[in-house]
């Protein structure tokens, strides 16, 4: 199968404003230190790693919210590493993102219908209202939700709106950055089931960032383990969970609570 993303030696550093001398340039901190991997079409890639390991930074570089300082990102064969916003605009429809905190990622003063419709209108879709309704149907929200404001929804419903906004454009790739970490366990399961179904139905390629390994294990076909801005493990999910190569991965796995407490006693 063809690769949707090809990432070669991706580097990203940001100026460290806390250490900026009075005069002159701030020293740069390397956040991504040369990552290389490919993401084949149709895969669900799990990205795990400790806090501050660079997961979000990697994701935001892939959807070009951040510009890499080195290396290359190829999307469907096209080099998008240093494209400016004008160059990216035609491609923007094809890779979308779902954010961690829907309270922050949904404009509090726009109605749900407006939130889902805005990207559609931007990309010149015809029959926007019909597509908004279709997106709401897909994420299991009744059509009446189009007239609500985000603060009038529950956490799980808000995250569904975030998903609806992303899939309405019928993208090929979606980045999901810790999208269930703010939800309670039962909403988590519902949102994950929903996402799984949508990936199947719409033939999506997904990058799923999480620090919850049990979620990754359930959902993902491949896993990328990041440690301090470097890839320490990149393999099929079963392989990572059954025979982890890196010491850091083993540490992560040991930290997972056992799914069934009774197992300890048998």
């Amino acid at each position, binding site marked *: 199968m063809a690769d949707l993303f090809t990432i070669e030696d991706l580097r990203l550093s940001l100026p460290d404003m806390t250490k900026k001398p009075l005069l002159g340039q701030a020293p740069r901190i390397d956040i991504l230190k040369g990552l290389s991997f490919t993401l084949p079409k149709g895969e669900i890639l799990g990205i795990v790693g400790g806090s501050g390991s660079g997961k979000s930074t990697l994701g*935001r570089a892939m*959807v070009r*919210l951040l510009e890499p300082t080195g290396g290359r990102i190829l999307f469907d064969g096209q080099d998008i590493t240093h494209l400016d*916003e004008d160059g*990216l*605009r035609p491609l*923007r*429809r094809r*890779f*979308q*993102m779902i*954010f*961690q*905190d829907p309270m*922050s*990622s*949904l*404009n*509090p*003063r*726009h*109605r749900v219908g407006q939130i889902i419709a*805005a*990207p559609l209108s*931007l*990309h010149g879709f015809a029959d926007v209202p019909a597509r908004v309704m279709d997106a709401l149907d897909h994420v299991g929200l009744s059509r009446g939700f189009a007239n609500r*404001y985000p*603060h009038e929804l529950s956490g799980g419903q808000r995250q569904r709106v975030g998903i609806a*906004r992303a899939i309405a*454009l019928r993208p090929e790739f979606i980045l999901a950055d810790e999208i269930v970490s703010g939800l309670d366990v039962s909403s988590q399961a519902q949102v994950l089931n929903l996402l799984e179904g949508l990936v199947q139905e719409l033939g999506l390629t997904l990058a799923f960032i999480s620090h919850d390994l049990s979620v990754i294990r359930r959902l993902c076909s491949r896993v990328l383990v990041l440690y301090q801005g470097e890839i320490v493990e990149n393999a099929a999910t079963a392989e990572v969970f059954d025979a982890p190569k890196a010491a850091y991965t083993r540490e992560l796995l040991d930290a997972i609570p056992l799914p069934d407490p009774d197992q300890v006693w048998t």
Partner: protein
Amino acid sequence: MADGRSQIRRRVGLKLWLSGGWIAFLVMAALCAPWLAPHDPLAQDLFLGRLPPAWVQGAEPGFYLGTDSLGRDVLSRILYGARLALIVALVAGSLTCLIGATLGLMAGFLRGWVDVVISRAIDIWMAFPPVLFSILLIAVMGPGLTSIILAIVVIDWTRFARVVRAEAMAQGAMDYVASAQVAGRRRISTMFTEILPNVLPTIVVLLTLEMGIAVIVEAILSFVNLSISTDDPTWGGMIAEGRTSIHQAWWVLVFPLVTLFLTVLSFSQLGEGLKDRFDPVLR
């Protein structure tokens, strides 16, 4: 629904209705002053000087709020004075708001050199003592409606710029801005469609506050004789005149003062009321 929320909403509505009602009443009075005013506001008649209001002993019929020491009708002068007060409030308030809010929005959201330039301008501006600055400006330009409005705009735009800048900066860090970028929206367009609706409630509150401030500034300038020509009835001018005869004719001072107070109070409450009523996040 009989829960607590509906009661809060009723009280909110009251604030809006009272303040909006008074402003609307004032606007009508100003527009219809030529028909409403019982007398010519400039007509003097020394035989009718210092007549008390209608309900006090010794009043003449037709002079409902009494007359001043030159025999001019207080009610008619308040009605005509409302014209100047409202013009200043409306024009100076909107201009200040437009300039200050636009600069603040650009500085707070676009950041970079735009922010550097605008923030420096604000800092330098704020170092000037405002009252001296306005008196200087009017001294140079000469008294008149334009100079009053200009003085208010020139001094007060920083009030909007600072607050809106801070607010826009906070909103700019929200993920819905990143989301708009992922959707391919241009930055300028994001500023208007995503950020503006979120700073608008603050802008409305500031705008109505500014209108109240403009009314006060105009009154103060009239009081120190720096407003428009002294013949034209202004609330500040009336208060200044009333002050000299407070012991003989309290009504010359009290009625314009109460009108001024109610107007400024209404403007400040109007913004809060509008925000409570129309901000979707608070409803």
